[in-house]
């Protein structure tokens, strides 16, 4: 039996972030634990880790780079680098997820800045969009929840905060380029990037 309100509609269940509150017996291993096993040369753990992060790594790399084959190449580079340097991961300096995605984003940025001529980048401005697209395949429930939550939280930012954050992070521009694109003072963009992320952090409930 489900409980019904007086008007007959079903009571909304509170949305619980199941993925963040795992049941110790049945939950898949936490990414941090997997990475710890990878650091000890555990290949099956690396396969599990691949399955957990390949889509998000590929997603962010492709978001920045656009070019699918380059994105595939960089994704491969990043994931092999995760394997190679897992021994250097320091849980005191952030989560495994943060470590891996920071690496992925940085690699994509390095690639785009090294290889793309400025006119290519201008074209990317034309093609830019500022929110995580829904059609980007969200096979896992966790990813869908994540997308919804991030989208909702991005909406709590001011326009300038949101544009600064998304142009910098998703489109890969330096904050100087962002200032130019938005025709805003450098100092303002610098500040908006910071307070925009801080607001996002608070909205998402990010814990370091």
């Amino acid at each position: 039996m489900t409980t019904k309100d007086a008007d007959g509609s079903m009571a909304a269940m509170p949305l619980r972030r199941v993925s963040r509150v795992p049941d110790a017996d049945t939950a898949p291993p936490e990414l941090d634990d997997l990475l710890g096993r990878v650091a000890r040369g555990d290949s099956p753990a690396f396969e599990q880790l691949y399955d957990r992060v390949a889509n998000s790594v590929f997603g962010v790399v492709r978001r920045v780079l656009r070019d699918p084959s380059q994105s595939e190449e960089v994704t491969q580079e990043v994931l092999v680098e995760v394997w190679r340097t897992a021994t250097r991961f320091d849980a005191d300096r952030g989560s495994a997820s943060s470590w891996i995605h920071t690496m992925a984003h940085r690699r994509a940025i390095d690639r785009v800045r090294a290889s793309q001529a400025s006119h290519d980048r201008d074209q990317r401005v034309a093609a830019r969009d500022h929110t995580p697209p829904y059609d980007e395949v969200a096979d896992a429930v966790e990813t869908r929840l994540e997308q919804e939550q991030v989208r909702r939280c991005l909406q709590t930012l001011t326009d300038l905060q949101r544009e600064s954050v998304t142009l910098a992070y998703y489109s890969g521009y330096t904050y100087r380029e962002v200032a130019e694109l938005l025709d805003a003072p450098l100092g303002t963009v610098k500040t908006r990037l910071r307070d925009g992320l801080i607001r996002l952090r608070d909205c998402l409930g990010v814990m370091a």
Partner: protein
Amino acid sequence: MTDHDLHTLTGAYATDALDDDERADFERHLESCASCQQEVVELRATASRLAIATSATAPAALRARVLAEASSTRQLSPLGEVASLDDHRAKQVSPPWYRQPATAAAAVLLVVAAGLGGLAVDQNREADQARERAEQIAAVAADPDREELTAAVSSGGTGTVVAAGDIAVFHGSDLPELPDGQTYQLWRVSGQDSQSAGILGRGGDVTEVVTGMGPEDSVALTVEPESGSDEPTSDPVFLVTMA
């Protein structure tokens, strides 16, 4: 830029929106700014949520390629210090240094690497030599690309080699005391050729620098008559070969 200006760059840093010069400036500032470090950790975690939110299905063929490449890629040995936030970025895959895999004796390496920089120098040496040796040890200990290996010395005790570039630092600990008239001696071995790298005394804890290491060279420890030998006269009790 003032410290305050630098502090407000945490957002640009966390989104990789700084150019190379500003990044370098900010990272220098970061080393001495605990609150910035904390904020960077949090903002990077936030940015990684933006990454997850833009997930896309990775090409199916990628999985096998990544797993295959990983299986033929040697993992780095653990570092003897807290890795900087950017340690993992943009490092090219380097070839394996040693034929022997790094052991799990990382804990020993941490202590050795941490202690190397501040080693008391051998008082029997000339001051210049001692200073040069201390500098070499410090440089190797601080090299982010250094390789480390710890293994048992067959006659007792433990040997650790930390290498970077053409310099290898050997550290022996708890080497059993030899009878009067004998000494431990360290060698750089290139093919058939052995070059003495130092006479280390009768045991205990010892550290020595080996210079001129080539890609195929070995570091070897033997037991010799107390004045040392021109070439090894006994089988090594410890041997590490660079690959």
